């Protein structure tokens, strides 16, 4: 019986150990509730920094919280809904190890963005000066035309 069952599920001779079908949908619905609660927590954080006008370190802390909650949601979707958690170690590592490149990508590019911002703040004129109401035909100061 066990053997017959596996024959029915194994779709390819490449598969050595077929998965047994889950007995019920309990795990799926549990994951749904977890995702819903995490999303509501994200929304609460997103609205809180709008309502309470947070700034500086507190704002960064709230944004960091939302990033961590999003990563948790990603883990649940990939592990349970995409069934990566049920695959063997070789498969998991093949998918997950290349994602480590993102640590470098995010760090390097955001660092570059901040460097640009610092250069702008140092050398650009304040933006309000450039767009202040002026006579229609007046030349912009420093314009080449």
């Amino acid at each position, binding site marked *: 019986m066990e053997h017959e069952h596996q024959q029915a599920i194994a779709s390819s001779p490449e598969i050595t150990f077929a998965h047994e079908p889950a007995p019920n949908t309990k795990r799926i619905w549990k994951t749904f509730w977890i995702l819903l609660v995490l*999303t509501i927590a994200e929304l609460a954080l997103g609205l809180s920094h709008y309502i309470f006008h947070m700034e500086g370190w507190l704002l960064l802390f709230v944004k960091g919280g939302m990033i961590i909650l999003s990563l948790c949601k990603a883990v649940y979707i990939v592990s349970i809904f995409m069934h990566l958690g049920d695959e063997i170690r070789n498969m998991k590592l093949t998918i997950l190890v290349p994602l480590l490149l993102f640590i470098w990508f995010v760090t390097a590019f955001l660092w570059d963005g901040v460097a640009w911002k610092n250069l702008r703040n140092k050398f650009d004129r304040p933006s309000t000066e450039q767009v202040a109401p002026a006579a229609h035909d007046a030349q912009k100061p420093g314009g080449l035309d």
Partner: protein
Amino acid sequence: MSTHVPAGYKWWTGGKSPYNVSYGKLMMWLFLLSDTFTFGALLISYGTIRVSQPYWPDPNHVYNAFPLMGHADLPLAFVSLMTFILIMSSVTMVLAVHEGHKRNRAGVEKWLLWTILGGFMFLGCQAWEWTHLITGSHPVLIDGVVKEIGTTISMNPFGPAVPGLMHDGHQVTVPGPIGFGSFFFGITGFHGFHVFSGVMLNILMYFWTRGGRFDRLGHYEMIEKVGLYWHFVDLVWVFVFLCFYLI
């Protein structure tokens, strides 16, 4: 869903997949991995431009409209609905995959139809949101003249406020960073295109299931592969939601 592998089993001796998955499923995973880097590159370039700007619009202020609610200020309400629709459609998709494991054709058909409905609802919401952003104009001071402009890939009315300048009872602003609209429409558009492709694939799966194709094959693995793609679309939305609406 447990896999019983004896300890010390040799995976790399040839003649079988060392990943214990079929060729098609492995290729779907590798495609999704590459697509992760495409979306990653788009979102990281958005982040780079955003942090390089001295001013960036507050998403709570930009995305505050809801259909049929007029000018009521409802920050993030509509996008929460969109997120809920997409999570729900991910659940119905995984239920279709679950029925496929049990080779229950009627169950697969039912949950695929719900997933298709969820996909169309999400696309409809996105169409409404885009229309609202493009056509909803705000007074902006450009070259000394107040103009009414909407949000497009080349215009952004959500700049800093001009102190004391009002127009028809609305606060006048200066133009905001152009990158706001370009990245928003570019990335949500690319994600919407993925949702659209996913809906098309699901419709194809529905007809293949109805036609008895998977019963003849003896397994419903194709539903699993399309399911992987559909969950990936939901996964990308988690990060689009984070980067554009929450942060």
